[in-house]
Every structure is written in structure tokens, then in C-alpha cells.
């Protein structure tokens, strides 16, 4: 193992420029790289080769590429490489292909060196192959993680965007619910609404479900929970925006909404809220 490491290290040291040139030629011939990114690839490749050499010199185990201390510089290079390429819009395949193309030039050098000694040749090739494969795997997983982070952030933003609490009138709050209600969203809406009730001292909250596509037993249960929590705080709640189909579904499912005021539209709900608060709306123009 030590001997193989030394051999590979020597190849990488003495033939660095050759390996690098052949590597890039390999990439260009396979047609996946455009010429404008070749410059970036050259510096990326050199940096990666250096860290690879450092790792092999330290005698690190290729099987522990993801965790071993000696591979940390190589991992750092791959992190930035994968990150920038993902940002530029390259696919995971292209990035891993970039790393995997390194195999051929190194294999060639190994063969030149140890072509007559099958054992040594086999060991050296196995070593290089393992490291390069691990590196490629690592880039793919980093690529995926970067994408997942983006998705997670978008989900979070979507949640926040979809649950605004608006003040309709003095002492009247409204939440226009948009999208399917699941337990996570209900929790978020409930917390935001209850906090606003405390902050503003509002006595009435209107939950508008015009934007909720379907109401099943689970959604109804979430709504009931929210209404109960609002009542416990000492405020009242009206559910508005119940469309005819949804009203039918609720009745057919046998959901008991007794004790909850429901209105067909937000306008009706606001009118009721004003009446409860003692306001009357009159028209001054005839």
C-alpha cells in the first residue's frame, strides 16, 4: 500500500503538467465542455491534483474519503468546485464527469511505469480508481445537497409568504389561507394569528379559506383547533370563503362545525364583524 502510494505520488509530481493536459484533452474530446470554461477547468484541475497528491502522500485511506482528516483539502476544493458549477447551471453528471476523466491519464502513466508487473499495476490502478470514484461520488452528493438547501429555503419562504395576517378594521384581523392546509402550516398560521391577537388586542379574527382547494376531515380538524385556540385566548373567530362545493363536502363528510360562525364571503364576514362591534355602514350618495 505504502509502495503504491509512493508510486502514484511520483507520477503526479513528475508528470503533473502532462496529466493535466491530457485530462483536459479528454474532457474536450468527450464534448461535454465548452471552450470558455476550459480556463476555469485548468486552474480547478491543478488545484484538485495538488490536493489529491497531498492526500496520497499522507497515506490516507481512500475508503474514508468523506471523513478522513488527510482528505480535508481535497474535499474543500470539491466543495467549491461543485458549488460554483451548480450555480452556473452545470448538471451533476457534468461535474462528476470532470472528476472521472482524471482516471485515464493517470492509468496511462501507471501502465507505462509498471506495465510488466501485473501485481503492482493492479494495486496502483485500484488505488487511483477508488480515490477518483470517491471524489466523483462526493461531488454528486455535494451538488445534491446544494440543490436541497435551495429547495428547503424556498419551502420556508413559501410558508412565510402564504400566511400573512392582515388588519381589516380596528379590532378585526383576517388571514387569507392559500394552498392546502397541513399540520405544519396550520401550526404556523395559528401561532402567527394568536401572536397578532395578543399584540393588537383584536377581538375578532376572520379565517378566509377561499384559497384552500379542498377541505377534508383533517383540514377541518386543523381549522377547529385554530378556532378553539382563538376562543381560549378570549377572541372570536369567523370562517369565511366557504365555496358551495366545500360546503357540500363538509356536510357529506359529516364534519361538525357547530359553534363556529361560517360565512360565504369575506365581505359578509366583515359586515358581521362591524355589526358586532356596533358599527353601521351607510351610503351617502344616492
Amino acid at each position, binding site marked *: 500500500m505504502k509502495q503504491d502510494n509512493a508510486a502514484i505520488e511520483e507520477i503526479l509530481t513528475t508528470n503533473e503538467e502532462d496529466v493535466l493536459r491530457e485530462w483536459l484533452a479528454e474532457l474536450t474530446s468527450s464534448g461535454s465542455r465548452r471552450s470558455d470554461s476550459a480556463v476555469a477547468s485548468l486552474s480547478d484541475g491543478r488545484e484538485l491534483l495538488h490536493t489529491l497528491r497531498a492526500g496520497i502522500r499522507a497515506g490516507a485511506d481512500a475508503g474514508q474519503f468523506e471523513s478522513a482528516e488527510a482528505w480535508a483539502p481535497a474535499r474543500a476544493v470539491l466543495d467549491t468546485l461543485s458549488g460554483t458549477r451548480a450555480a452556473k447551471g452545470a448538471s451533476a453528471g457534468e461535474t462528476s464527469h470532470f472528476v472521472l476523466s482524471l482516471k485515464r491519464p493517470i492509468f496511462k502513466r501507471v501502465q507505462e511505469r509498471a506495465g510488466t508487473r501485473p501485481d503492482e499495476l493492479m494495486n496502483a490502478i485500484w488505488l487511483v480508481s477508488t480515490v477518483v470514484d470517491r471524489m466523483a461520488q462526493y461531488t454528486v452528493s455535494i451538488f445534491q445537497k446544494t440543490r436541497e438547501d435551495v429547495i428547503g429555503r424556498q419551502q420556508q419562504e413559501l410558508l412565510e409568504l402564504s400566511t400573512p395576517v392582515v388588519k381589516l378594521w380596528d379590532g378585526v384581523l383576517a388571514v387569507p389561507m392559500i394552498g392546502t392546509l397541513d399540520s405544519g402550516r396550520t401550526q404556523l398560521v395559528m401561532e402567527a394569528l*394568536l*401572536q397578532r391577537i*395578543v399584540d393588537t388586542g383584536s*377581538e375578532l379574527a376572520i379565517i378566509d379559506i377561499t384559497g384552500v382547494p379542498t377541505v377534508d376531515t383533517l383540514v377541518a380538524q386543523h381549522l377547529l383547533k385554530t378556532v*378553539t385556540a382563538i376562543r*381560549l385566548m378570549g377572541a372570536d373567530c369567523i370562517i369565511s370563503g366557504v365555496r358551495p362545493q366545500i360546503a357540500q363536502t363538509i356536510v357529506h363528510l359529516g364534519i361538525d362545525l357547530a359553534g363556529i360562525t361560517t360565512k360565504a364571503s369575506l365581505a359578509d364576514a366583515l359586515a358581521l364583524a362591524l355589526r358586532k362591534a356596533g358599527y353601521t355602514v351607510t351610503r351617502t350618495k344616492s
Partner: protein
Amino acid sequence: MERIPILQMGRCLLVTIQVDLQDQTALRLQDDLASRIEKTGARGVLIDISALEIVDSFIGRMLAGISGVARVLDATTVVVGMQPAVAITLVELGLSLEGVRTALNVERGMQMLQTVDKEAGP
């Protein structure tokens, strides 16, 4: 053992819970309140729990219990100032406190008690 003070304001009793309630303290409060209602002939009980941050099912049941006892003694109970987290916890525990009146703050709770008292007559 701690004791929750009960203040009298006219025909109402005022209880402010400032500490996290222990089970024993809660039971004692229930006893004290029942005897005070009987002694003073109070028509309303106002429980301010705005400082209460943690509840469990026992405290939830105790609130319902106090309200029930007071109703039997012909007094209306209003629970005021419940924190959002407490409300959510009670709902998740399945305690909706049916029959307990609630208000946002002490002022509105007092108004509510006075309205109920007026409706009920002297």
C-alpha cells in the same frame, strides 16, 4: 406551600396567577375560591393567567373545574390573558374548556362580568 391570593372587587373576585402552578397550589386555589364565593356571595370570578407560560392537562382541567364549581355557586368565571403558546398547548391536549368564558385582558374580562351581572339582575 404557596398560596394564590384572592382579591375582592365589588361583587367580583380577582385571581392573578403569577407563578407556575404546582398541582397542590392549584387544588388549594380551587378550595379557597369555592369558600370565598360562598362567604362573599360574589357573582363573578376573574382569573388572570397572562403570566402563566406553562400548562399541563391538570392545570387545564383545574381551570374547567373552578369554572364548574363557581357556576354551581351562581358565579360566572372569566379566564383572561391566555398566552398563545398556552392556548395551543391546551388545544393539542384536547382541552377546549367548553363553558369557560375567556377574554383578551383584565379590562375586557371585567366588562364582560359586569354585563353578565347586569343581565342577571340584582
